[in-house]
């Protein structure tokens, strides 16, 4: 089907140079910087380091600093846009963050560990998904809302997802943002990797010695070209192409030869198909590893004709999850201003560097710009923005997807058969994370943390079972949803920083603390180099990962996928949930964990186990009646008559109000039976990932999965077991 064309209609930025995009671009041209020691918390080891602290935002309670920065950028992006004309159900929100509100969580842990003062409610800031939830509520969006957390490429994955949603006609308008604030974990984490510059960063310079961390949020409003025209919105840039891939090489370091980035650039250019790339907004962090690998990729992708390229990291600092959005905004400013920006901090070229980054700004006629962001785990993403619309129409795949195999690591067993035998027994709620990993030598898995092992176990089984369906590793994506990510590694790292006053850091725990540590581990082990994602959306994290993987395959970025969800038990999550116990039924008594993954592609195989008939993520109806109406409409859209559904699954029902919504939906679905997955496996954000496997255990027929989050998002899935 012919794609819609995504265009940028709004931009907002909040960073060390305030919250005005044009002023920030001018500061970049003037090679200014705002680097200074941070005053957010006492830092015995890194007190002399320089950072780019954000300004121009309000720290609003009850939000985190990160949300304050994000809302400032989002407010700016929407300042001159009247979005009331848009259908709210067709407005989606895609956020990106590396660590979200972890700074406030650290403050709470500090009080707890040093003064024994409990402020457990503050642990909620840790949940990255709250960023998209808060932004969606703020702007009244009722389409899907999800937050990507793939370290430094987070907001670029969000941007790609928004382009998919618009081009595939899921949304008319999307808010995309990336946001990160300073925190103990990032400062000490990058410190432990010896990646913090002693002074000011020098991107692409021979004498570069590391990064300056920065805080920022960048927000972009994207619309379909037709909706933008209908609403009379000014187009700031056309999104000519977007792509994501993975190095599948190392948990933190990029491939030294830049091969992953090179193939990303080739992919972007081949689907772009117009004009010359005038400039590259490089990731350019100023670390030894990144800059030389990135330059190698430019050389291999462009040969002797490397476009002008620059890094803005001296100005903004490395703003982690926000850096992709910041790069995009600077790229668009350069496109519209016809100015190639300089690289502040650069003076002496790398050895063997034929094409140097720009030292001074220069005027040029610019048709299109490439912007890149490269994250931990070799997680690469890029976008090409153009002044004019492309002359040729793009297509997307609008057919169906098939599930070929399942892998699980659950408290009740590590295979569907084992689970079937144990399903009616009470408990237990903990996984044996070593299951299915027996064949991996101890030295190869010595650095994997529990959640990575659980996810890897599920992914390996799903990949094995898929047989011929995953024959293109370069085009196979890995999308793992997670509600809480690597909580235990994060907690371990922060506890150590607080108790040891920043001495004796834990580099491995830091590299394992990112939400994409499980998906990276799976990609590295299986050699899958397509999109690599960690998406977080509370109880519907699995459905969000499934949505993203299918959207990515529809756009042609990947051809098959491993999709799953994983969450682990954590004592802090337990403590936190107990503070909420009075609102909810049996909260935390049965806190559980697990991982499940499926191999998925558009080609039906002989052994395919299921077909995805429908997947819809959106804000649930405002009343049970409206929710019933929405579900009725979706059933009609899927051409599934009421009464056809054998079983309707739901991951959990937390309170009476949610029960009313479920009952209203179930009335329209009219299933033969309903099944609350929490009753079988205990409470975990990943529960909905079990549904397809549970359907398979029940046998042929059509099944539904209705999942609801505490932020009132709902996912509705219909699948047929073949």
């Amino acid at each position, binding site marked *: 089907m012919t794609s819609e064309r995504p265009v940028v209609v709004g931009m907002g930025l909040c960073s060390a140079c305030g919250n005005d995009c044009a002023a920030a671009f001018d500061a970049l041209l003037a090679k200014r910087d705002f680097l200074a020691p941070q005053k957010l918390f006492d830092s015995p080891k890194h007190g002399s380091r320089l950072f780019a602290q954000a300004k121009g935002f309000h720290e609003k309670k009850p939000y985190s600093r990160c949300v304050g920065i994000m809302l400032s950028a989002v407010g700016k992006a929407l300042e001159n846009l009247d979005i009331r004309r848009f259908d709210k159900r067709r407005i989606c929100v895609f956020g990106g963050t590396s660590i979200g509100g972890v700074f406030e969580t650290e403050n709470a842990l500090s009080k707890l560990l040093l003064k024994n003062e409990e402020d457990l409610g503050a642990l909620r800031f840790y949940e990255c998904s709250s960023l998209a939830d808060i932004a969606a509520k703020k702007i009244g969006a009722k389409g899907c809302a999800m937050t990507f957390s793939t370290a430094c490429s987070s907001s670029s994955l969000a941007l790609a997802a928004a382009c998919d949603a618009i081009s595939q006609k899921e949304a008319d308008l999307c808010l995309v943002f990336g946001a990160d604030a300073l925190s103990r974990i990032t400062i000490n984490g990058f410190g432990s*990797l010896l990646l913090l510059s002693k002074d000011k960063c020098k991107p692409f310079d021979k004498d570069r010695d590391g990064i300056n961390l920065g805080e920022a949020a960048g927000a972009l409003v994207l619309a379909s070209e037709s909706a933008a025209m209908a609403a009379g919105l000014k187009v700031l840039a056309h999104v000519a192409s977007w792509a994501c891939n993975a190095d599948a090489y190392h948990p933190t370091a990029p491939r030294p030869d830049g091969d992953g980035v090179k193939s990303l650039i080739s992919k972007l250019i081949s689907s772009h198909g117009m004009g010359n790339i005038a400039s590259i907004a490089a990731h350019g962090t100023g670390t*030894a590893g990144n800059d030389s690998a990135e330059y190698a990729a430019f050389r291999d992708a462009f040969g002797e004709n490397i476009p002008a390229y620059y890094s803005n990291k001296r100005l903004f600092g490395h703003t982690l999850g926000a850096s992709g959005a910041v790069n995009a905004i600077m790229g668009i400013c350069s496109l519209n201003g016809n100015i190639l920006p300089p690289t502040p901090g650069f003076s002496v070229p790398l050895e063997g560097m034929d094409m140097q980054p720009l030292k001074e700004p220069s005027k040029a006629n610019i048709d299109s710009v490439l912007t890149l962001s490269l994250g931990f785990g070799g997680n690469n993403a890029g976008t090409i923005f153009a002044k004019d619309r492309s002359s040729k129409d793009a297509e997307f795949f609008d057919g169906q997807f098939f599930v070929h195999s399942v892998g699980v690591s659950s408290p009740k067993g590590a295979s569907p058969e084992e689970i079937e035998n144990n399903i009616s027994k009470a408990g237990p709620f903990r996984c044996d994370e070593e299951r299915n990993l027996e064949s991996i030598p101890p030295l190869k898995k010595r650095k994997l943390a529990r959640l990575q092992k659980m996810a890897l176990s599920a992914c390996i089984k799903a990949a094995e079972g898929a047989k011929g369906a995953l024959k293109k590793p370069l085009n196979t994506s890995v999308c793992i949803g997670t509600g809480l990510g690597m909580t235990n590694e994060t907690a371990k790292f922060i506890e150590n920083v607080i108790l040891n006053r920043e001495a*004796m850091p*834990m580099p491995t725990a830091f590299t394992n603390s990112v939400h994409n540590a499980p998906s990276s581990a799976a990609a590295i082990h299986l050699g899958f180099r397509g999109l690599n994602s960690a998406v977080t959306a509370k109880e519907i994290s699995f459905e969000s990962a499934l949505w993203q993987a299918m959207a990515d395959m529809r756009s042609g970025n990947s051809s098959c996928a491993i999709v799953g969800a994983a969450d682990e038990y954590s004592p802090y999550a337990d403590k936190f949930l107990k503070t909420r116990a009075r609102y909810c039924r049996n909260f935390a008594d049965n806190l559980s964990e697990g991982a499940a993954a499926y191999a998925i592609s558009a080609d039906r195989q002989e052994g395919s186990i299921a077909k995805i008939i429908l997947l819809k993520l959106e804000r649930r109806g405002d009343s049970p009646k409206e929710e019933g109406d929405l579900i009725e409409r979706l059933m009609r859209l899927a051409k599934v008559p009421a009464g056809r559904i054998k079983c309707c699954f739901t991951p959990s029902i937390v309170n009476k109000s949610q029960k009313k919504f479920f009952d209203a939906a179930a009335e329209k679905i009219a299933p033969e039976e309903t099944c609350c997955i929490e009753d079988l496996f205990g409470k975990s954000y990943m529960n909905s990932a079990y549904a397809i496997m549970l359907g398979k255990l029940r046998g042929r027929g059509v099944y539904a999965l209705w999942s609801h989050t505490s932020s009132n998002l709902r996912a509705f899935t219909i699948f047929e077991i073949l």
Partner: protein
Amino acid sequence: MKDNLTEDIKSKIISALNLQGVSPADISDDTPLFGDEGLGLDSVDALELVVMLEREYSINVSEQSTAKEIFSTPASIAEYVRKNAK
């Protein structure tokens, strides 16, 4: 005769890096720690060794560039410790 410091360093490497199934006897004094030839450690392991030196011998290594030489073999670590021990 075996050098005590080098032997001590070998067992500390094993415990700092969770090298399950490896004993100090499996590692010779000049086994390369990094690369495919020897133990096959990576850059994050090197950083764990930086912390190990700080914890066990109160020695600071703050530059990534020098870390590479110091950590090339158990013997080179021992030499560095001898020179820098306070």
